[in-house]
């Protein structure tokens, strides 16, 4: 009976629009997928879903004993437990060198929408204000995800043009209203199951950004696949964006099972890679995305098997931060950080020094236990008796929303137990921003690791600070080398 009702409701739509709607969907995909549709004689919804159905059955069954509903879109709260249950014949270790979080770059992850940071009651108010209750009863997961990313840019990266105070309910309602009034709700959704296609998500997001005068700075782009098989490309896009401190929004359609990540928009803010070691020395690798489900579930972390990125009817929305100016400087630009004899020396007191870079930019610096050593290295050394702290404080002539640099330990014998290394920014006081794990930092000073830091956009003063909680000895230790700086700004 229910099928008859569905048929009655949809038949007019199908008869009138089926071919044209599918053509429109096809037009949003890549040339290769259009060719694929042609070669498989997929001209309409019917052939498409028959194709997806066959493919889904092949792709969506998961490992044995997985304990869940067996869908590739299941949410996972404990990856280790999941792997040990699903692939119990392997011994699993997380590959920390292939893991990332936006917080490694920006010190933050997107908020969980519909938590106390952006509660459901705000969204319900916005639905009324935007007068979209005929299209959605709950706001739609796409628009809600967009609000979460817009909040991220405002709350953590300082783009207050979007929302001047994310902790103010009225202002959140205004932002939610701006999103909802610019959302194109698909005819295939409805008030009971809101559907927003990825290209409409992108248009909405960029429209709100444009409304706030930031279209030259922030933009969204979408990739979308009808037939799937884009897992590697999407994974690479996720990794590149997370490593740049920017979340990725994932759209999932009908072809990825019935888990929490299915038919949903989620904001990805991390990724993990795990390696399984078998009894016969064989290894397998499993990848996971870490995301906000945006149902107010901020009391847990949620992962999904990255195989979901290989499904059909999947889209990802990536975000760009554009800067109109940039320049680089290097360790040897700090060659004035020496003593009166021109030699390197880690002074035990603060020294002010202002100097111009070759491009004419002024750097106003303060430093403690920081020097230019061996005519080559810019080094902080906090570990020595009567020391404990080393810093390099730089004030720029302009804002510094983007900073990249390379860093390494001077050697593998620096006595770093009890030492920390942070990047701080000045906002009426020093604010801890990103901390770098010294245990995983390169110990080869000629092969340093690269880092990107996104700062609140009005930042103009930053500090590299290394602290040792039990400095000792009469030699300069705990040494950290810095080089290859790049700043970007508007």
């Amino acid at each position, binding site marked *: 009976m229910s099928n008859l009702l569905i048929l009655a409701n949809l038949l007019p739509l199908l008869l009138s629009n089926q071919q044209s709607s599918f053509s429109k969907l096809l037009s949003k995909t890549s040339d290769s997928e259009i060719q694929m549709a042609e070669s498989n004689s997929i001209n309409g919804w019917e052939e498409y879903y028959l194709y997806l159905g066959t493919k889904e059955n092949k792709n969506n069954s998961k490992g044995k004993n997985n304990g869940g509903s067996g869908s590739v879109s299941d*949410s996972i709260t404990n990856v280790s437990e999941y792997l040990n249950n699903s692939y119990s014949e392997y011994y699993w270790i997380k590959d920390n060198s292939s893991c990332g979080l936006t917080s490694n770059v920006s010190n933050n992850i997107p908020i969980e929408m519909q938590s*106390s940071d952006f*509660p459901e009651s705000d969204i319900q108010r916005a639905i009324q204000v935007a007068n979209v209750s005929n299209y959605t*009863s709950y706001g739609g997961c796409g628009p809600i995800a967009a609000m979460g990313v817009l909040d991220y840019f405002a709350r953590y990266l300082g783009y207050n043009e979007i929302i001047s105070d994310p902790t103010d309910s009225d202002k959140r309602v205004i932002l939610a209203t701006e999103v909802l009034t610019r959302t194109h709700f698909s005819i295939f959704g409805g008030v009971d199951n809101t559907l927003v296609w990825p290209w409409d998500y992108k248009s909405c997001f960029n429209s709100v950004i444009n409304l706030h005068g930031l279209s030259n700075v922030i933009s969204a782009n979408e990739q979308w696949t009808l037939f799937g098989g884009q897992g590697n490309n999407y994974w690479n896009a996720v990794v590149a964006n997370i490593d740049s401190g920017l979340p990725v929004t994932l759209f999932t359609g009908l072809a990825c099972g019935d888990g*929490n990540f299915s038919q949903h928009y989620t904001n990805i803010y991390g990724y993990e890679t795990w390696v399984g070691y078998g009894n016969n020395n064989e290894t397998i690798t499993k990848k996971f995305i870490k995301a906000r489900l945006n149902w*107010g579930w901020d009391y*847990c972390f949620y992962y999904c098997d990255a195989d979901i990125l290989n499904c059909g009817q999947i889209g990802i929305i990536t975000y760009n931060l554009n800067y109109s100016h940039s320049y680089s400087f290097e360790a040897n630009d700090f060659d004035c950080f020496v003593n009166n004899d021109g030699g390197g020396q880690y002074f035990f007191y603060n020294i002010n020094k202002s100097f111009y870079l070759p491009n004419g930019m002024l750097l106003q610096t303060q430093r403690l236990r920081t020097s230019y050593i061996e005519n080559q290295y810019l080094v902080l050394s906090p570990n020595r008796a009567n020391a404990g702290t080393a810093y390099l404080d730089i004030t720029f002539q302009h804002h510094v929303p983007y900073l990249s640099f390379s860093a390494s330990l001077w050697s593998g014998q620096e006595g770093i137990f009890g030492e920390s290394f942070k990047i701080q920014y000045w906002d009426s006081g020093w604010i801890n921003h990103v901390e770098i794990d010294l245990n995983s930092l390169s110990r080869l000073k000629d092969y340093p690791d690269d880092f990107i830091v996104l700062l609140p956009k009005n930042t103009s003063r930053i500090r590299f600070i290394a602290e040792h909680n039990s400095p000792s000895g009469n030699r300069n230790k705990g040494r950290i080398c810095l080089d290859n700086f790049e700043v970007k700004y508007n």
Partner: protein
Amino acid sequence: MKKNISIAILFTFLNALTSCVDHRKNFFVEGIYSGFNSYNSSESCHLVVSKIDKDEYILCNGRNAVEDLVGKNYFLLSFYVYDEGGSKKAIDFFNLVDAHKGSKGAPVTYVDENFIYIKPLFTGGKNASDSACYVIESNYELKQQHFYFTLFISEENITYV
């Protein structure tokens, strides 16, 4: 025959098109729960959830009673907020209804006529951790009682009613 096959294919297609994932998996569970106001940590709350039958639900006449649309049961709710000084205030729910009007696109939330929302978080442990149990929030326009409580199973064995 050909017509029958066409109809069968059409039904298959329609099922695919309309067989949306039901994200309404969250249901009420009996117990005593407690939490703190995210907007004012000096405020705490207790929620007592008791199962009742349909007749009792009808007798409640919409006051502090809810029909669980997922678990298909009826519950009596007793919700108390404690201020910094420990003073207890009962907050009543009046005529709780589905805030999402049956939508399958998101977990179910219930809203009363004063725009107080209650969302059970239990999903049977199948798809989410059930470490938290309920969220109760008020509309910001109710500035006198603006709260967002995340409630967990109460560790105290106290009778509050």
